[in-house]
């Protein structure tokens, strides 16, 4: 027996509608308040900007195309750094999780890196790799790689004992356990790692560009801030935030598909 499909749909729609209107309502209310405060001169629009100024500035930099080279520059650093982190971090994490000696050997240095704020090393990267893309890539890579390493290591070193016992009972060797148990079991951890890495990589991109260079959203933020163009700062922040949210939600949606594996159906 199933209850009326329409009823279920209406119930779901109501819930969804309520959550959107409440969540969106608060944002809209704050934006209106901000706009009013700025228009009525309660706050100085030069320092705090206003939603309408941000929209018009945003429109302007899009219309004259000046924002795109910054987006492209930041985007490329993000993509290269993120991919490099994935290509290095995923296999390395698996290696550490699978071989106890590898984790004993590299564990301490990874822990040291993991807890050091990577931005603190940016001056070194600039000395080593120059002011161009090299130093920025280094920072993005080092920001994004550790969540991936740590997540993959955790996944592969904490396999479900019931499953490995089944594999062993049916005569699986280490290699077969790796391919048939360890790898599939680590997929949800991989997605969690990728989500964390997204946030870290964005932080790395902006941090690297603020530090030095002549283009990119981070550079623009830094430049616009120094010249009191607060609306441009906000435009950049909105772009970065929007990109981060889209990435995060996509990975989260993908991750949900694996919930059933973990028994949180």
């Amino acid at each position: 027996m199933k209850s009326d499909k329409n009823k279920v749909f209406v119930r779901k729609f109501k819930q969804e509608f309520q959550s959107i209107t409440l969540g969106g309502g608060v944002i809209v209310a704050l934006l209106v308040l901000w706009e009013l405060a700025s228009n009525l001169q309660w706050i100085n629009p030069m320092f705090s900007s206003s939603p309408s100024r941000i929209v018009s500035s945003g429109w302007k930099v899009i219309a004259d195309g000046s924002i795109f080279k910054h987006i492209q520059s930041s985007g490329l650093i993000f993509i290269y750094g993120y991919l490099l982190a994935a290509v290095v971090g995923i296999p390395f994490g698996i290696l550490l999780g699978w071989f106890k000696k590898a984790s004993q050997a590299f564990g301490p240095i990874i822990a040291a890196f993991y807890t050091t704020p990577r931005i603190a090393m940016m001056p070194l990267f600039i000395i080593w790799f120059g002011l161009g893309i090299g130093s920025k890539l280094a920072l993005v890579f080092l920001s994004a790689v550790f969540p991936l390493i740590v997540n993959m290591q955790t996944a592969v070193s904490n396999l479900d004992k019931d499953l490995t016992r089944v594999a062993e009972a049916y005569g699986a060797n280490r290699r077969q356990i790796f391919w048939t148990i360890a790898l599939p079991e680590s997929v949800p951890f991989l997605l969690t790692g990728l989500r964390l890495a997204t946030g870290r990589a964005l932080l790395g991109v902006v941090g690297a560009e603020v530090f030095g260079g002549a283009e990119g959203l981070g550079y623009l933020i830094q430049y616009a801030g120094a010249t009191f163009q607060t609306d441009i700062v906000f435009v950049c922040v909105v772009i970065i935030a929007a990109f981060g949210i889209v990435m995060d939600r996509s990975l989260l949606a993908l991750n949900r598909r694996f919930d059933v594996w973990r028994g949180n159906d």
Partner: protein
Amino acid sequence: MAEAVVETNFQIATGSTPQFEIGHTNTEVFPKLSVNELVITFENLATGELTAAVDKVSIDIEPGEFVSIVGLSGCGKTSFLNAIAGLIKPNSGSIRVNGQPVSGPGHDRAVVFQKASLLPWRSVLNNIIYGLELRGVRKNEARKLAEKYIEMVHLKGFEHYYPHQLSGGMQQRVNLARALVCEPEILLLDEPFAALDAITREEMQNELLSLWEQTRKTVLMVTHQIDEAVLLSDRIIIFSARPAKIVEEVRVNLPRPRTPHLKDDAEFDYLAKKIWGQIHTAAGKKVNVEYEI
């Protein structure tokens, strides 16, 4: 057939095994499974403390025989089964299948675990053929082999379901089919229905009974369900509290083929009560029995 086995005390039976080995080269005279003076001791890796789980247990199982081991929880019966499966190394004693000593898991044995432990990312069909895949059988071929057993455990139509979409009873059927499709010499059942609710458990017991009547596999089952043991077994071995020793061996001479109606039989009742009594005396003989879950 199992019934043809001479009614002997197990000590005499195990004592005579070496003579078979010397006298004959024909493998048919060997018991299907022969366990001799098995000792299993666990070491607590942190404290170095030793705990004896199984103490010099010997069992012979004839081809086509269904043997159950019953005993209190934590008495070491699962360790005993795990040792036969090759999952833990015994400290001393020997395990032979068809007269050949075994060390480690092998294709001649298949285990049905208490928890279904299905791979959640594999469909029912792919879970069933997992054991075959591990030994290098091609997927297409393995799927063909599986068909017969899918039908046997009534999973037809569910081949492409995933474990989380199945009830506990159905998951356990997959678990059973996964073992059967390997066509092992000996089927090892480790409290296979203990995690199921009472109604599903009874259903599964009845199904295992009819399955066994069809296949006549050699089975060693560990359980603490006495009615389950009596219904299914040719022989029931009662383990003492830890460290496990054999207290008593009961031959179930109820006629085959059996049906679930056997449970209404007076003799069934008598046997079940007798085994209950023996488990209790076995526990009572020791002053400091630890009841563990």
